[in-house]
């Protein structure tokens, strides 16, 4: 909100005492239309790929190959290569699915909701947050398919296609709702992301040195010439897509939470799940944006565009959503006691003191206790610490899904069927493999597409204030 009240700031690195108290700007002073455009398009159009990029991409790609190997093994042998069993029918597969989907929430939130609320600070992070959303959803979408016993059939039997047998999916199943929710979310996110990219594609087309660059960016820019009519339609389309996306932010993870809430299992069967899952998703999504933004601004020298202001705001959002999540944990425990249901009661005491108790308390330590550090400005200013904390938040949210899924399943109603779950190396291979896929796509993205919206950045440089604002 304070975005328009710029503090004069000379940008001296030594003025840390002052920086502690002042709200930093959304863009460092001294930038013009041209400097912004040069800086961002230069990352893409440069002929010289940084050696660090190759190094990072190679590691990510190696993990991507591990994922391919795992999928190959999985299709040939069956999901028995994982540790899932009866009673723990879902484990790493669905944990990872929910984790990735949750991470994918920040992108849309930043793009759509913050756009509608006219939050200027979203501008420099929305592009790569949206890309992150797409890649995370792509990682997530693999799991519901691959976790099935017969993915080659699940690939289309879960879709309502007309067929001679007159067979339809079972619309009462939350898994079908998932299919709709996730595909809708992916489609809208993709459109939203691509629409936002069009003006920048035109910029790159115009500045590209190579013929290939001109052709490819030319095609992708869909004939953008920057006319007033183009801008008008662009603005309208972007706003409409934002409007469409906004309910999705809430709906997707609500639907994902129905996978659990609709069941009869103690620990799953709970009405608190939708809001609690949505908050958790935003929380983990922002943690992932932070995890990506901190190295990105460091290695590409984008501190001017992704300023401490952004970091602070993201931290605050994590603090708020993290505390909603912690409230959810408290509520689960309260209802387990208040319901006087012996199965719920046992589920909760098993979470706390059972064989997976250490993981539960790690989760509480991270998601309820550790995030309280974000109250402190000194912590919010410590980039290195924030990077570690944002990674830990991602770990914490993964643990949350592990606790919800595994501890609820492994000891349910009949003590006779209680069993333990232990992941196999293929479980870890699949998980790290999707991280490899995610990072590989992200590396390609920052190399070949503008990671920050150029034209939107241009709207927030001081130069733009001279003209009537046409866009918030």
């Amino acid at each position, binding site marked *: 909100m304070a975005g328009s009240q710029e503090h004069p700031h000379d940008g001296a690195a030594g003025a840390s005492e002052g920086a502690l108290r002042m709200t930093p700007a959304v863009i460092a002073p001294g930038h013009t239309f041209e400097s912004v455009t040069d800086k961002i398009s230069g990352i893409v159009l440069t002929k010289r790929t940084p050696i660090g990029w190759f190094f990072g991409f190679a590691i990510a790609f190696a993990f991507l190959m591990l994922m391919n190997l795992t999928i190959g093994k999985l299709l040939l*042998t*069956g*999901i*028995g290569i994982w*540790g*899932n*069993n*009866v*009673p*723990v*029918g*879902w484990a790493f597969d669905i944990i990872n699915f929910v984790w990735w989907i949750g991470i994918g929430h920040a992108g849309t939130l930043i793009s759509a909701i913050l756009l509608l609320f006219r939050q200027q600070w979203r501008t420099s992070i929305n592009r790569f947050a949206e890309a992150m959303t797409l890649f995370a959803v792509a990682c997530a979408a693999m799991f*519901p398919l691959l*976790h*099935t*016993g*017969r*993915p080659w*059939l*699940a690939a289309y*039997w*879960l879709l309502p296609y007309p067929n001679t047998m007159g*067979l*339809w*999916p*079972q619309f*009462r*199943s*939350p*898994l*079908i709702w998932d*299919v709709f929710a996730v595909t809708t979310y992916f489609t809208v996110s993709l459109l939203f992301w691509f629409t936002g990219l069009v003006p920048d594609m035109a910029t790159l087309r115009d500045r590209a040195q190579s013929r290939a660059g001109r052709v490819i960016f030319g095609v992708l820019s869909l004939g953008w010439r920057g006319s007033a009519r183009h801008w008008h339609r662009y603005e309208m389309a972007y706003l409409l897509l934002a409007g469409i996306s906004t309910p999705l932010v809430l709906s997707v993870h609500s639907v994902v939470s129905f*996978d659990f809430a*609709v*069941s*009869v*299992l103690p620990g799953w069967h709970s009405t608190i799940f939708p809001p609690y899952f949505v908050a958790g998703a935003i929380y983990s999504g922002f943690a992932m944006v932070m995890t990506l933004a901190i190295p990105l601004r460091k290695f590409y020298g984008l501190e001017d565009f992704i300023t401490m202001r952004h970091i602070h705001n993201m931290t605050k959002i994590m603090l708020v959503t993290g505390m909603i999540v912690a409230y959810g944990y408290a509520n689960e425990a309260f209802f387990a006691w208040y319901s006087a249901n*012996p199965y719920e009661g*046992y589920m909760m005491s098993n979470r706390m003191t059972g064989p997976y108790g250490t993981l539960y308390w790690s989760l509480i330590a991270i998601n309820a206790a550790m995030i309280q550090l974000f109250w402190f400005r000194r912590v919010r200013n410590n980039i290195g610490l924030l990077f570690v904390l944002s990674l830990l938040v991602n770990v914490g949210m993964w643990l949350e899904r592990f606790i919800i899924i595994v501890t609820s*399943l492994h*000891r*349910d*109603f*009949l*003590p*006779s*069927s*209680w*069993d*333990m779950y232990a992941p196999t190396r293929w479980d870890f291979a699949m998980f790290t493999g999707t991280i490899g896929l995610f990072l590989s796509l992200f590396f390609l993205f920052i190399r070949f597409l503008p990671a920050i919206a150029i034209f939107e950045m241009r709207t927030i440089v001081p130069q733009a204030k001279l003209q009537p604002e046409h866009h918030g």
Partner: protein
Amino acid sequence: MTRGPHDIDALRARLDSTRGRQYWRSLESLAETAEFKEFLHREFPQNASEWLDPVGRRSFLKLMGASLALAGVSACTRQPTEAIVPYVRQPEELVPGKPLFYATAMPMSGAGMGLLVESHEGRPTKIEGNPDHPSSRGATDVFAQAAILGLYDPDRSQTLTNLGEIRPFGTFAGAARSILASQRPSQGVGIRILTETIASPTLAAQLRGLLAQYPRAKWVQWEPVGRHNGREGSRLAFGEYADAQYAIEKATVVLSLDADFLCAGAAGLKHARGFASRRRVEGDRTQANRLYAVESTPTSTGSRADHRLPLRPSEVEGFARALAAQLGVSAGAMPMVPDAAAQWIAPLVKDLQAHRGQSVVIAGEGQPPVVHALAHAMNDALGNVGATVVYTQTAEAQPMNQLSGLQELVGEMYAGTVEFLLILGGNPVYTAPADLNFAVAMQRVPVRAHLSLYEDETSALCQWHVPEAHFLEAWSDVRGDEGTVTIIQPLIAPLYGGKSAHEVIAAIADRERSGYELVREYWSRETGLSTQPPAPAPAPVAPTAGRGLAPANASQPAPAGNAARAVAGGQAAPAPQAVAAAPVPLVSPFDREWRKWLHDGLVPNTAFAPRTLLVAGNVAAAPVAGGLPASGRATGLEVVFRPDPGVYDGRFANNAWLQELPKALTKLTWDNAALVSPATAARLALVSGDLVELRQGGRTVRIPVWLAPGQAPDTLTLHLGYGRTRAGRAGNGTGFNVNPLRTTAALDILTGVELVKTGETYQLASTQDHWSLEGRNLVRVATAAQFAEDPQFARKMELQPINGLTMYGDFKNDGYAWGMTIDQNVCTGCNACVVACQAENNVPVVGKTQVLNGREMHWLRIDRYYTGDLENPDTYHQPMPCQQCENAPCEVVCPVNATVHSDEGLNDMVYNRCVGTRYCSNNCPYKVRRFNFLLYQDWNTPSLWLQRNPDVTVRSRGVMEKCTYCVQRINHARVAAKLDDRPIRDGEVVTACQSACPTEAIVFGNINDPNSRVARLKASSLNYSLLAELNSRPRTTYMAIVRNPNTDLEPAAASAAEEGA
């Protein structure tokens, strides 16, 4: 890998270059070289190990790639012509798709169990009990259920071998005959025949005939888990061998002295049925029986006892003496008994004496003869003889002291006086007492031959190995426990050309003859009926038709008497009389009887007549067993040896169904373990899975321990039958061989055992890790007094009454509504239902690692819970099939409609449609769904294809499966009923688990029919649903347990429990 010269020529050249003495040394050293070893290991010297070689692999891949690329070219060729020949003349009664049932029997450990075997187009697929047979009454035990897999076991020995070379049977018979001929002058002094306990009258007659020809030859029997003690006990009591037949159904008070009489032994089924008849919910509750069990190791019998007293095995004798003295039997030396036991005696004596003539005392096979003799004397003193106990001659054809016979045989083998040892069945090298060193002694015999189903440890040390015909492949006969003879008729021609013991004896004594002839000849002689038909010679029913898989002759539909129990398909065939009523009945007098025997599965009037035997005055004069000071504690631990509940004495070690069957109380699979009580384990600082070494008298056994609640203190239970080295692919390397500790002096009980921790651990695969009920109302129990006071107690334990939850009203179905009740009062946890389900429904075996991972596939499991003191808990068995919920939680969550509700209330699985999300399993509160995580079915072993039930889909990888209430049997009955234009009758559909159950604990039927048995049971106040508060409305319901404790003993038991805690 480096490539060395591995050309035989090169090696030969190297050898050629050496001379003289060096030559030999060089050969040895040459053999040590890597090159030579590689040569030895390359079975196919060209290209065999190319795969491991980087260069070779590349060229191999090139070739493979080229072959694959060109493989498409060959697709243009025609498929080879294969002739499919239909029946030119359709065999009578054989309708494809309709199973036929044949009556036969399974011989085991000196008794037979009457069976009906289901046959589909000539291949037996499923074993049921014969309802007409007095020892099974339609039920079966796990061994009979699993025998069908044993028949098709691909690891069975398939060829007759002499020193590893394949030989025809004639060669063996000729060789044996020539040995016998050479022994004729000495009257067969060097001939010894070692068999298992024989209960076949024909075989016994053959053996006696052979011994008559060779008077100095000897026939020795050895059964590792035999009735040695019972036999000697009867001699002690009566001076002769006799069997006691217990009429448990007439007994109001039953005392078991370490006897697992409900589940073990040939009479187990009969006892279980009798016991259940006085316990079940529909029975006369005022006349409920009361069971006292004194036992050293927890058994299924003990789990059903109203009072259970864990005693060290050596203390049982003292207890028996003390009790006998109180009952007025002269019991010899009076040892001290532990306090807990002493408190038992007065109330027990009072209860027994209050039920004179209605009580029974049964001694366990593991207890020494004197305990058996005391039990006989106590029954005598209580006036039970003639009422609940009847004495008869023994079912085994030739009772003898097997142990001394075996000792004598080993002595003679050591002495070198045995020239020819013929072993018919059994595996004495593995099972004989360790101190006899049977394997060493046997190798001093010049000629050794072994007839066996498997090429096992004994076969490996015999020059001749003859593959044995399975009992489903051969003609024979056997006596049931109470004497009734069943003719064993084959269901299929021998798969691997095996021979029966009858045929082997005939071939070596005389000439090769078929088992069919031999059995008929014996019975024709016994009955005095002529096999010659009165009129011009008809073609007698020929043994096995030409087709390899055709069923043997004398095929009969299910006997009319079985109509209530047999599956519908078998009944549609015409009645046997119609078969016989051909235009001119040219059947011989013998054949007329014979056909009836085969049809009914028993020879009438062959049950033993009761005998009157007098108990000797001083049965217990013998000193206390083993010279033990039964009063004081012997140093060290005590060990009891027991047959394994799954693999028995090791004969079923290669039966994967039995290996994977969770043992009734420990729920262990694929292994045995030393059972130890929790308190003893705590004292010795042991936890389950600790590998220990047991030492006694220089003998050692390494085995992991397993904590068994209810185990007697300081007592280890070791199950026989594991640690086999030549069992086959399933049995090799499973478990631990405990036979090295088992000596002639300690066949059943071993004292003074030292336990040494090795510090290592061993992973044991148990299917139920959690034994507590966690205070949940899953098993509902009351005493008889509480039940009388509040008959609705089970309903009152409901967490939350469910009513009027739906806006739409209940779904009404007017047709059949299938439902099941399971009576926990009578379930002994014997597991017969579990194996029956596995056999009926093509349930795969997954192996130990998958069981460890919680992926066992049994559609029906038996949950076992303990309550109370860990040292002597109350144990409950709860069979858990699919509950077939009316509001099934699994159905709403399946995204592809693969599990749906039928209008008869079945929760159907559509395997074709299942994509395997496992959501249904997650949402199943009973966790009865099973998922094919990997390809568990064996699609590659042809012999196993024959076993599969053609009415049940064989599931593949990635598909969920579960209990269907045997929907294929419902559909068979439906077809039969529709043909007759009538509704399905109550009792016409019998699920596989129900038909196997010895106690009839499982009842199935139409709950819409108020007169059906299941509907009547569901109306009982004891009937309750599991997890009713979830509103899943299961169709499977349970009967609450009503115990019948002795009020005099209950406080005593409670205080004893406190002491133990």
